[in-house]
């Protein structure tokens, strides 16, 4: 199967951000599939994450985007060590934590926290808000000056909840407020890195912005680094200084915000951006390229050979099937903007002379209409 990506240079964080806090090399997670007869054995694997390289600088916010099945959530869980990596290396603050034991991990655990998507199932309904927020402190044996309860009240106030609600249960709060509780719990241990997995996608539009603003405040004022995992490209753009685009377990493009959104090179990034339905506030914003892929993402059990996007790509050639494109800086891209593509696109998102419509049904209907 595919080897780890050979990445010559470590991608440094963008200018302005501090030194590297977290670095991930060749991170891989294969979930085995068992079957066969008469004795069950491993017959294959879901290649959820396959050789991902990523860095997060101190205080930096990195976005991880991609569609379902691309491995972005698995990556988050690997980094927080909720899942055990199959291969690769995770370095946090210079320390290799890839396979660190529970005890070795203890000091790091408190520094890396996670916020989950579903504010309903990620909070224990039988515990009060106070218990939920203080339990990470108790588990890690942290005794804040002034007492645990005072600290919990501080945290509640910080995330915009009434400190008086210390003794209430999660079901007494709305979805947005619950997500604030999740944020307070993550902040309880003064983390340096928060992995936020789709933190706002379960919330109503009018509530999303409240939580995004809170996270932004936390990131900027407390200097906490974020790995922000989401499928909503507009929200990720708003939140992240640097982004990685994933497709079928691999990072296909990584770069700063402007490079990814305005100067994308990978055809998949182009397709993804073009697919986002944007509210047109005036006539100018309509001038975007139109790309419509065909079909859905292939199964991560049998990913395509070579470049994984080739089966849905309009530029694919023979080379794409045989040779996996390395994630490198290609000519015309800025420093730190890496793309894994043999035949990259021009760095623009403006509309093309002709739309790219790969979906056969769409193409047929549109031809008919002409």
């Amino acid at each position: 199967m595919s080897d780890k990506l050979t990445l010559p240079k470590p991608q440094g964080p963008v200018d302005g951000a501090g030194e590297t806090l977290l670095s991930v090399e060749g991170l891989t997670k294969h979930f085995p599939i068992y079957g066969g007869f008469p004795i069950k054995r491993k017959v294959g694997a879901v290649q959820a994450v396959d050789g991902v390289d990523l860095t997060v600088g101190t205080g930096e916010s990195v976005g991880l985007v991609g569609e379902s099945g691309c491995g972005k959530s698995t990556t988050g869980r690997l980094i927080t060590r909720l899942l055990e990596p199959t291969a690769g290396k995770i370095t946090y603050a210079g320390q290799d934590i890839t396979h660190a034991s529970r005890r070795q991990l203890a000091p790091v655990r408190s520094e890396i926290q996670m916020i989950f998507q579903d504010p309903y199932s990620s909070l224990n309904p039988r515990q009060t808000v106070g218990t939920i927020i203080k339990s990470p402190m108790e588990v890690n044996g942290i005794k804040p000056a002034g007492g645990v309860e005072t600290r919990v009240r501080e945290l509640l106030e910080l995330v915009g909840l009434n400190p008086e609600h210390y003794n209430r249960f999660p079901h007494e709060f709305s979805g947005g407020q619950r997500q604030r509780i999740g944020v307070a719990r993550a902040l309880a241990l003064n983390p340096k890195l928060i992995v936020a997995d789709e933190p706002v996608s379960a919330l109503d539009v009018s509530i999303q912005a409240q939580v995004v603003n809170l996270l932004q405040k936390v990131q900027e004022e407390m200097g906490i680094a974020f790995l922000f995992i989401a499928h909503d490209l507009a929200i990720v753009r708003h939140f992240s200084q640097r982004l990685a685009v994933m497709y079928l377990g691999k990072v296909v493009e990584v770069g700063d915000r402007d490079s990814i959104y305005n100067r994308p090179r990978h055809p998949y990034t182009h397709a993804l951006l073009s697919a986002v339905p944007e509210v047109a506030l005036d006539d100018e914003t309509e001038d975007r390229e139109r790309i419509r892929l065909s079909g859905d993402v292939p199964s991560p059990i049998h990913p395509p050979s070579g470049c994984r996007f080739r089966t849905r790509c309009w530029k694919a050639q023979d080379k794409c099937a045989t040779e996996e494109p390395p994630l490198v800086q290609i000519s015309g891209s800025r420093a730190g903007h890496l793309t894994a593509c043999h035949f990259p696109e021009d760095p623009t998102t403006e509309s093309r002379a002709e739309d790219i419509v790969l979906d056969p049904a769409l193409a047929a209907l549109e031809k008919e209409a002409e």
Partner: protein
Amino acid sequence: MTTLTKTEGEKAPGGPEAFLSVRDLRVRFSTEDGIVKAVDGLSFDVERGKTLGIVGESGSGKSVTNLTVLGLHNPKTATVEGEIVLDGKELVTATEKEMEKLRGNKVAMIFQDPLTALSPYYTVGRQIAEPFMKHTGASKKEARARAIEMLDKVGIPQPATRFDDYPHQFSGGMRQRAMIAMALICDPDLLIADEPTTALDVTVQAQILDLLKDLQQEFGSAIIFITHDLGVISKMADDLLVMYSGRAVERGSVREVLRAPQHPYTWGLLSSMPRLGGDTAQALTPIPGTPPSLLNPPSGCPFHPRCGFTSEVSGNRCSGERPLLPAGRGAACHLDHEQKSTFFIEQIKPRLG
């Protein structure tokens, strides 16, 4: 074909061409906690071949409204008042038998999650062919041929073989295509699409939205498109209805509502969502508070507890008096016309980046 001559009830836009017209619709559910006013005095029209977008958050009543149009609410817990007139026929009082003839035939529906909305126990083909046999009296063989034709039209590769597959053997995007095929098989005059792309990935969503639009051209159906996503609605709809707490708070053409919105709630929606072309230095402006309870909706304007402009209205009108939604383009808000326009241009628009 039909001219609508309804004069009673609240007046709403749409001329004689209105194909579906809903007047002063009220849907209440009795629950253990009390009466839920899911829809509270809603009026709108849909014209033939046009798309009406209904946008709102969870609990705004947008889905309930459309289930009621098809008579799919539970008659034991829900009480429906008002008028729903489809092509000259009153539906609120129609019998179950009359509704059965209408459903899947003249009015079809597409649901949000195609995985749960298709039965896991029967083949995709059978489920698509079923309404065709029922409504046209076609034989099994004819229905199969027609279903395969529809599968092909919505872009399912090898439709003749996939006809015999079960839903779980389809991918998410393909399942939604199959749903569309099922909805369009009897060439309906009205298609109700309830969050049809919310469960899909963004690239697949783009395919499905375009497909729906192109198919609408071909089939000439009117569409009611329900969503919480303003971006999606701006791509799909001709006219737009913004719902909040079971009521319509703003209506107009999509262009009017999205480019010159008049209701503070619409302003809030627009300024709380980031845009791809937006200014990232500009912080989002969320709507404060939480959506209202439908058990005890706020008095007066349901949005007033979350509204930042109540002080601009003299007296206690916002909390005391329910603002009416004028006929045609307009918003149900006590701010006067000039205020709506100046506040948007001076305070809201700059924030949208």
